[in-house]
């Protein structure tokens, strides 16, 4: 058995060889690599035979469009829009179907509760609170996710995403950030917590922090249903198709706005608290490969859809129960929920929302998915409408509660810009190991969300547009 070796002798040899490393023209590290490649070059020539008569495939020419000056950006925008449109249009019908099944089952549940003569409060907490929220979250989230994630995974497997980095890198360079940040943003469309974790691919710690702090500006899957629902409702049109096109356009605009904020905030960070020059980027553009569709669906359903849905449901159930309780416990004449909303109302009105909306966002801190269900439940509990059977009643409920286009617009803005969910904050803490940066990750979007909504609301009020 060898004896203990104190670290010194090795370091001593190392310092003794300093002269070899610093001497003469070509560094030895270069010689080593040059020798290796000289060998692999020769070996490859010997064992690989390139047969003649190779026909050029679509793969060789596709990059002429994907990264071209003329088509590069429009193609990206078109793909982004197409993904959103397919998601929105494709999710409409299954969402309605799931909703009608699940809400029909609510009546069955109610019937059972009546049969066993369960107390009204138990029925309220479990069925009207917990079950209804779960039903909503499933109906609204499952279909878009089951479409969005496979589409995204397809693009990923095809090899398109590195091209997106390639096309956008210059903008990130101007913001003193890393082009790979847009991969973390793509991941963020699925889930911001995952986006924050994926910032690992960025080597420079400064640029990684920028990516982590700004990831929240891409709307995650938990916020998409809110955006989609509101955009669909307030984009009035008679034709089904054109309505979903308009909604997709609206969503794309919102997303672009979020990307804009990402650039501005990244730039501002690297001019202030995260000063520094952009580091170098070495990016491989792998060949396009036709994805295995089966594997893509399997992976995106198991790894992403089910994972995110389960997380949402786990949070939604207690939150639904809690909201029902808050809405049905009265202090004097006013329910707890109404009195909290009343407290928040002045601030909320100043930024173009109302107290209930702001409260729903606050209750949605554990998971953004539950913002709309909580909002609905608190509206319904206050009694303007007592029952709603389908998602299409949503607009009626919102209008009955005094929504204007400004409320809708600012709710979308706030959903896009506000604080990250608890899971994302936790991921930020794990990745940075710093309470300070996690706090910044909370404060930056929060301040921006309040400021932007305040300005928009005040301008609209001042001009008397609503």
């Amino acid at each position: 058995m060898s004896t203990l070796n104190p670290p010194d002798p090795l370091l001593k040899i190392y310092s003794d060889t300093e002269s070899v490393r610093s001497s003469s023209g070509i560094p030895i590290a270069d010689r080593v690599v040059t020798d290796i490649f000289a060998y692999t070059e020769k070996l490859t020539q010997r064992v690989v035979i390139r047969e003649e008569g190779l026909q050029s495939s679509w793969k060789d020419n596709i990059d002429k469009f994907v990264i071209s000056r003329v088509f590069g950006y429009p193609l990206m925008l078109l793909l982004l829009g197409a993904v959103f449109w397919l998601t929105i249009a494709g999710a409409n019908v299954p969402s309605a179907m799931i909703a009608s099944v699940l809400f029909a089952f609510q009546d069955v549940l109610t019937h059972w509760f009546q049969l066993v003569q369960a107390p009204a409060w138990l029925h309220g907490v479990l069925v009207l609170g917990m079950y209804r929220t779960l039903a909503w979250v499933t109906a609204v989230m499952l279909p878009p996710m089951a479409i969005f994630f496979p589409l995204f995974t397809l693009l990923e497997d095809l090899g398109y995403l590195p091209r997106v980095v390639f096309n956008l890198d210059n903008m990130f360079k101007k913001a003193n950030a890393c082009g790979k940040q847009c991969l973390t943003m793509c991941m963020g469309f699925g889930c911001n917590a995952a986006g924050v974790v994926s910032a690992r691919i960025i080597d420079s710690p400064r640029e990684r922090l920028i990516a982590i702090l700004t990831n929240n500006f891409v709307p995650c899957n938990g916020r998409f249903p809110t955006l989609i629902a509101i955009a669909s409702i307030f984009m009035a049109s008679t034709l089904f198709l054109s309505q979903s096109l308009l909604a997709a356009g609206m969503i794309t605009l919102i997303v672009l706005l979020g990307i804009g904020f990402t650039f501005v905030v990244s730039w501002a960070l690297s001019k202030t608290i995260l000063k520094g020059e952009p580091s170098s980027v070495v990016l491989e553009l792998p060949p396009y490969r036709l994805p295995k569709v089966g594997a893509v669906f399997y992976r995106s359903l198991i790894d992403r859809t089910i994972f995110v849905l389960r997380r949402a449901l786990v949070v939604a159930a207690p939150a639904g129960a809690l909201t029902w309780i808050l809405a049905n416990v009265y202090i004097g004449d006013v329910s707890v929920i109404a009195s909290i909303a009343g407290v928040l109302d002045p601030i909320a009105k100043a930024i173009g929302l109302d107290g209930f909306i702001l409260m729903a966002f606050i209750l949605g801190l554990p998971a953004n998915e539950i913002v709309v269900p909580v909002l609905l439940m608190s509206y319904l509990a206050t009694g303007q409408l007592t029952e709603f059977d389908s998602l299409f009643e949503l607009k009626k409920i919102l209008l009955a509660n005094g929504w204007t286009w400004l409320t809708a617009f600012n709710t979308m803005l706030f959903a896009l810009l506000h604080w990250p969910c608890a899971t994302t904050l936790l991921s930020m803490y794990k990745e940075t190991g710093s309470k300070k940066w996690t706090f910044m990750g909370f404060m930056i979007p929060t301040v921006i969300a309040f400021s932007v909504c305040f300005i928009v609301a005040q301008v609209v009020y001042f001009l008397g547009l609503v």
Partner: protein
Amino acid sequence: MKLLSVPLSTLKPGEKSNVVHLDVLGLLRRRILDLGIVPGTVLTCIGKAPAGDPIAYLIRGTVIALRSEDACLIAVEQV
């Protein structure tokens, strides 16, 4: 006759060149070496991003993109 060397970043899409010398330092130098960019390696410019930067090169059968300020630290001579 030996041609004068020029920075890699001046290559136009479709042009081929031979690496003469690397001026890159530190981690990036290591990265570039490990991708097989050593003196004598043939690089072909594939294209530029829509904004003109970064630039994609074909290196030993793989496409690698570099930012122009990094690419201009690699001296090449045209083939």
